[in-house]
């Protein structure tokens, strides 16, 4: 099976190791990974800030690149997958030529854990795990994309690791994309609250499926002087192959 990888801008610039872990995982489970050249950003920063024309420009570029490919499109971000799946079709509905592409690409996009479990059935084999891990379920991943069970199934396959519950697990970490920059005081307060819950869980590692949220959580933990490791689920799984 051939899959198209959308790395996301955040992974590209700040967390390339998450992209590499994603490639390693997909290949391990028998997928051939294409990384379409010229990909940039899904446009979410502009869309969420109300800049529809600017978001549409990013969306058109994304569609030009990915509509020219075939097969599933996989991305290690619930938020970016939700953008492509739910917002592209509405954003481009009045553009003949683009609306069809948007609908077709929306039907092909998968968030990584969704693809690993739903298509590659990666959770059916074990991964080497260690330590005490807690999981932050990102808001767009769960509420917009509806991906709730898949990351848990993958975590359960981490043999040797103890998965510990996080209190108020569904509460937002305060990242919110541009929210982090627009209202930093609230964003930091929420990250601190999340960091407190992670510390109280007794975990030595916190994981999730969105680098943006994990980045914000890492900052909250750092400000508390915590040694808890923050790692994308792709990294934990790739390490355990």
């Amino acid at each position: 099976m051939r899959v198209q990888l959308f790395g996301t801008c955040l992974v590209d610039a700040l967390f390339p190791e998450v992209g590499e872990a994603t490639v390693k995982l997909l290949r391990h489970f028998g997928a051939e990974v294409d990384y379409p050249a010229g990909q940039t950003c899904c446009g979410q920063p502009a869309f969420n800030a109300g800049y529809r024309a600017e978001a549409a420009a990013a969306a058109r570029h994304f569609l030009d690149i990915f509509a020219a490919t075939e097969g599933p499109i996989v991305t290690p971000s619930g938020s970016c997958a939700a953008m492509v799946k739910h917002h592209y079709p509405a954003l481009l509905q009045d553009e003949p030529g683009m609306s069809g592409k948007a609908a077709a690409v929306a039907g092909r996009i998968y968030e990584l854990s969704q693809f690993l479990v739903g298509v590659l059935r990666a959770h059916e084999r074990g991964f080497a795990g260690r330590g005490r891990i807690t999981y932050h379920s990102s808001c767009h991943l769960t509420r917009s994309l509806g991906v709730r069970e898949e990351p848990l199934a993958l975590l359960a396959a981490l043999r040797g690791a103890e998965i510990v519950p996080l209190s108020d697990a569904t509460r937002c970490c305060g990242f919110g994309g541009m929210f982090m920059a627009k209202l930093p005081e609230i964003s930091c307060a929420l990250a601190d609250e999340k960091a407190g819950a992670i510390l109280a869980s007794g975990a030595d590692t916190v994981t999730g499926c969105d680098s943006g949220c994990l980045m914000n959580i890492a900052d909250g933990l750092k400000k508390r002087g915590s040694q808890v490791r923050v790692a994308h689920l792709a990294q934990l799984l790739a390490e355990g192959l």
Partner: protein
Amino acid sequence: MSAEQTSLQFRANAARAINDPQLRAALRNATDTFGQRRESAFATLPDLEALRERASAIRLEVLNHLPAYLEQFTANASAAGAIVHRAADAAAARELVAGLLKARGVTMVAKSKSMVSEEIHLNPYLEAAGIEVVETDLGEYIIQLEHETPSHIIVPAIHKSRQQVGRLFAERLGIPYSDDPQVLTRTARAVLRDKFLAAGAGLSGANFGIAASGSLALFTNEGNGRMVTTLPPLHIAVLSIEKLLPSLRELPTFIRLLPRSATGQAITSYLSLITGTRRPGEATGAEELHIVLLDNGRSEILKGACREMLKCIRCGACMNVCPVYRTVGGHAYGWTYPGPMGLILTNLLAGMETSYPLVDASTLCGACVEVCPVKIPLVELILELRRRRVRDGFSGSATDLGMRLFARAASAPKLFNWGERLARICWPAVRRIGGKNVAGRLPRPAAKPFHARMK
């Protein structure tokens, strides 16, 4: 907190709230409690989703035919003895109410909790006209003593600890200090009992107006609502035009949803249905009932893309689960309605120019959408308001320019990658400019970005 709108200072208001440990503890405790009670209340109710769908459909039906329902409500309420008025805006409603009271020589009114009266700033207006207004809901009574406004639509004094209330009562009512809620409640009750009996009029809102019968439905817990609406000879109810239900047949859906969503109760202690005035042979009820139907911009909202906001039944569930509300409280929003429903309504009712910073007051996490009993697409509406803010030129020229650059770069990979490289090279400067709030919270860009590793 005065009636002055401070929504433009949202960020500063929020920052102040964040540094108030007492406020944050009070908010955390109360919103957690209400959130948990809500969950357990719904746990015993089969098929919540179908109920929400039905409630949403009923509210939409009313909105889709609002003029007809208003006409029907007016005819039936009038037939039952009420006098129904229409007020186009806040000023008209205030003048109407004050005029009715003055014409009857009323010098003191007992009032039950009403957010729409806060929206039109009724209390200060009446007080300026020489009419004493006594809030009889305990929470409202507390904040009236403190000269504050409600910070939650269901729990107006949510921001107060019982110790603060104890000190307030000791100071204002001249009683020995106590922070025992029972003692405080008994004190308020004794003070208010006399007010009910002496009041020349009762002022209330209404949760719903029932078009087919002309009735008002009031969900209350303290009994004060019933006294306000039945003891004084004159009862004036102010409600906004969208709060109608077609008939009593639709009410049970909302009896199931509203108290559970609001306070986690299966039903409120009191559910009053008021149809017209006191009839011959009846022992209670106002002799004269006036119903003021307030528009205040709602007919305009109804025409636009945010019309579903008018489905709202004011349960407050969205604010209890909102990470932003839970952190900053209601006063930070700077107007009448806080939280997700509040920032949207404030923007729609008070205008973009007085409230545009509020549309940022959401992480778009969607927790509010999950709990809304009438399925308002709150996140979609916030995104729509953000679109309008850009359209109306309230996003700031720096952001406008930044976003134009973003759009250009996002469609030109070379430029995009060059921007990434530039950010890495200039990282120390970026951190200095971005400060501790933004860039200081990001890791340094990678030496070799992912796309370069995939070549």
